């Protein structure tokens, strides 16, 4: 029997995930709207004074991006687990590492990438100086990819738990923190006129590490979850 090429299979998996996402446009729009609304919460909670808001804008934007990613990570494998698709994926003769990568990639495309694309609008609303916007965009682009990869691990480990619920946040928030620190530092640096490149380079390094290792952990997590 000739199993189809792995690349083809992963491309199909990616397309399937994107089709599923497109069938729930609400799901795609929601991280964005969530982002918008939580950004709006901050002035409401902290007070609308423009200069302090501008000071905090890099941190706020990054924290909200992180939360938005966190909330959607939970669902990466959830429905596939519930309806038995995940069992079938584990039984298929394709390397799980790459399938996992396809899942995560789809997740990043519909959350991280979109968030990065719309972030300038929200940056303006929080009075982030224009010099910080490019750094914000690129730091989000790289950083959210790391977040998605790490979030995948948490999702895989908790998907089989009878209502793991927010356990995932407990598991992966500590892993998110380095990303948050360097991401917001990159923006702050750009705002204050120093180069953001070193921070972006560190984020890039984290990304390569995460691409190499996170799917292994995720795949192992999935096997355990399906078994339990």
């Amino acid at each position: 029997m000739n199993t189809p090429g792995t690349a083809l299979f992963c491309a199909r998996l990616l397309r399937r995930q994107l089709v599923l996402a497109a069938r729930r446009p609400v799901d795609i729009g929601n991280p964005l709207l969530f982002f918008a609304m939580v950004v709006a919460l901050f002035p409401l909670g902290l007070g609308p004074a423009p200069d302090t808001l501008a000071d905090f804008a890099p941190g706020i934007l990054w924290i909200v991006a992180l939360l938005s990613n966190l909330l959607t990570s939970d669902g990466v494998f959830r429905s596939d687990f519930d309806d038995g698709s995940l069992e079938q994926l584990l039984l298929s003769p394709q390397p799980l590492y790459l399938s996992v990568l396809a899942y995560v990639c789809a997740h990043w495309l519909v959350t991280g990438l979109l968030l990065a694309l719309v972030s300038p609008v929200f940056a303006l609303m929080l009075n982030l100086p224009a010099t910080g916007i490019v750094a914000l965009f690129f730091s989000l682009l790289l950083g959210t990819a790391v977040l998605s990869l790490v979030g995948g691990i948490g999702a895989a480990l908790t998907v089989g738990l009878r209502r793991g619920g927010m356990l995932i946040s407990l598991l992966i928030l500590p892993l998110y923190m380095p990303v948050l620190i360097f991401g917001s530092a990159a923006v702050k640096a750009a705002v204050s006129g120093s180069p953001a490149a070193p921070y972006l380079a560190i984020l890039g390094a984290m990304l390569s590490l995460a691409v190499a290792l996170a799917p292994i952990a995720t795949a192992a997590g999935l096997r355990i979850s399906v078994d339990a």
Partner: protein
Amino acid sequence: MWTFFHKLGSPPWLYGISGTILRYLVPLTLIGLAVGVTWGLLFTAPDFRQGNSYRIIYIHVPAAVVALAGYYVMATAGAVSLIWKMKMADIAMKACAPIGAALTFVALVTGAVWGKPTWGTWWVWDARITSMLILLFLYLGVIALYEAYDNKEAAAKACAVLSLVGTVNIPIIYKSVDWWYSLHQPASIKFTGESTIHASMLYPLLLMIISFYALFTCALLMNMRGEMLARERRTKWVRKLAEDKAR
């Protein structure tokens, strides 16, 4: 009165009458908009403080006013649909949401574009602006909820509930945001007061507001007609319409 109510609930009748209304209302609206825009853009003097940028007022204020009013139209339709189970009210409610959202969006964008030359920033967290942003979220919520349901009848009921809940909240939101704003001193930002507006600026503005209301009505009727056809596609009167068209 009662028979009128009954007729209002009947799609073929409403489809017919709305066609007639639209035939006159659409050209009137377009003329009103064109006259108002030309008047406002070209034939009024600039504001003594803001210069020419104030000309945005002729779209900004009408959009904001009608967007707010639209929410109450939507909620009223929702209430009618829940209480009297009138299908046309469902359809009207559903049709309000995208129009309201679009007008809110216009108010926000024109406001932001106006803010840049006058305040030097695109956005401030002012009470009115913030509550307008929240209004946009409320509209988007209704649209998203409607889209998320497959059964459109159930979707309309769910949206009706949501928009009613929203009505209770709009005053609360407005009051609280207003009050929240007054806590902190604004950074030297002021709306131009209503009273300062000169009559020569007021007339085109009034014309534009009326035209935007008419625009809202047109868009509402057109959206309702589309929805009626989609929902009643299997009934005789729609088939007859389609046949007339096929000929």
